[in-house]
């Protein structure tokens, strides 16, 4: 028992060390292009300004959108930006590297490493300057929750955080499935475009969408699971059964995704053979 616990501890430390090494390398890469980083941050501030302006235009014409108030939409914008940051800082750069490695066969070296290949493939590239975007997103969420008044209970905030995490896991799992498909269809290098295309739907509560669109962004490409649903938990719209279901969905989808990844790896035969 003791040795098992120690081994688990060592394994976790190892993963953590690797993550911080990845982070360091990526910081160095970003520092090589300092001016670009500043320009990118300025553009990001500009888009935040646009997002807030568009919300203010909507709310100058109405007091609620799909039953939601301005504060709730600002919090939703924060959650949307969390998912968006994951998309841009993690999913985009790693997918690009992965697709390249399938095409030129450098995936061979990744598999040879004594570390979980899925971990290596999905975390080795991080667009570090986007980290400040996370802080901004959290600020938006806090401001949004404060604007909704004192009606929010600590329990609702807790379920909100849990469902935001599980929603992120669902998107992460879908991403793994999409890139795993490249093992079977080598030319499928548009693998994450569909995810990216529908991402914008996360800016608004799915309750305002027509039924067919709601079904697509909830069940097919589940952007809403990571955006609208955590916010619904915060509003107290969800009962305990629904909350447990969404948490289970996250666990199951991660298990399915890692199985698909393993099958895909078996399928992989290198670029030259």
């Amino acid at each position, binding site marked *: 028992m003791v040795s098992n616990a120690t081994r688990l501890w060592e394994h976790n430390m190892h993963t953590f060390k690797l993550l911080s090494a990845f982070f360091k390398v990526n910081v160095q890469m970003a520092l090589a292009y300092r*001016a*670009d980083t500043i*320009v*990118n941050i300025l*553009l990001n501030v*500009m*888009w935040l300004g*646009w997002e807030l*302006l*568009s919300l203010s*235009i*909507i709310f*100058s*014409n*109405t007091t*609620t*959108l*799909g039953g939601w108030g301005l504060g709730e939409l600002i919090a939703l914008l924060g959650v949307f930006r969390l998912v968006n940051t994951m998309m841009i800082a993690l999913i985009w750069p790693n997918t690009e590297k992965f697709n390249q490695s399938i095409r030129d066969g450098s995936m061979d070296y990744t598999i040879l490493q004594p570390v979980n290949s899925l971990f290596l493939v999905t975390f080795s590239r991080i667009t570090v300057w986007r980290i400040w975007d996370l802080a901004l997103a959290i600020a938006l969420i806090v401001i949004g929750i404060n604007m909704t008044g004192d009606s929010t209970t600590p329990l609702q905030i807790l379920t909100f955080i849990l469902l935001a995490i599980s929603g992120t896991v669902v998107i992460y799992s879908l991403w793994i499935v999409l890139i795993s498909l490249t093992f079977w269809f080598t030319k499928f290098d*548009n693998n994450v*475009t*569909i995810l*990216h*295309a*529908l991402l*914008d*739907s996360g*800016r*608004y509560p799915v309750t*305002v*969408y*027509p039924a*067919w*669109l709601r079904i697509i962004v909830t069940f097919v490409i589940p952007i809403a699971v990571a955006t609208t649903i955590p916010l619904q938990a915060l509003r107290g719209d969800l009962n305990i059964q629904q909350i447990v279901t969404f948490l289970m969905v996250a666990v199951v989808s991660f298990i399915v995704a890692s199985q698909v990844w393993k099958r895909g790896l078996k399928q992989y035969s290198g670029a030259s053979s």
Partner: protein
Amino acid sequence: MLKIFRRLWQVNWAEQWQYRANLLMYLLYWLVSPIIYLAVWTSIANAKGDVNGFTANDFITYYMTLLIVDQITSNIVIHTFGYKIQDGSLSGELIRPIHPMLTNALVNNIAFKALTIMGLIPVWIVLFFLFKPDFSHVALSSILIAAPVMILGFFISYLLSAAITSLAFWTTRVYSIHEFYFALILLFSGQFVPLTLMPKLVQDIAQYLPFQLFIYFPIQVILGKLSPAQITQGYIMAGVWLVLALVLFNWIWRNGVKRYSAVGA
């Protein structure tokens, strides 16, 4: 000259046809925002009866028309040309006796549009049955009046984007500049919401900018919302901006080519 354009068309059509799967992905990506705006505004209009005089059907017809108008007037020259200046592959085109930006790149863009519009038609029909817009008040004559505006709008939008793309002769950050330009279009063109629902200040500035000619103005002409005086004024604006855009592009292009020294030269 006509022969050259025909040949360019064949080459570029074949080139774009090769990437038809990518093109469908682009179309999907581009479709999502207008549909979301449509859903947001119709839900508000349905809840309140109308938004400043705009009924749910007004919003549906606006965005359904936008899907077509935007596809006609927009361009992708930054993506098809910017890298040529940066990696030096422009050199080969510069020694040809035809203008790279105003012939080859232009025809390439039009071939791209022709293909995306072909992809858009079935999607548009499906959306038509999903949203059931009431177009009964649209007259054929309004569409005929709008057609030249859309063509003018495309050329203005193309020349302005070409001018920005040509900034790549000076800076490697041309994509960031273009992102800023794209935000201006979003703000002043009527892409997010019909301009009359924007803040007063935005409307006042938008009047004098070319961006409303890409989206808001042609849509309003098609939907028959403008008086003959307003239409005339829009046409005059389009004429003025076409000349301005042409002068601006030429100036930047000429100075840029003078500065150009290809990679490896």
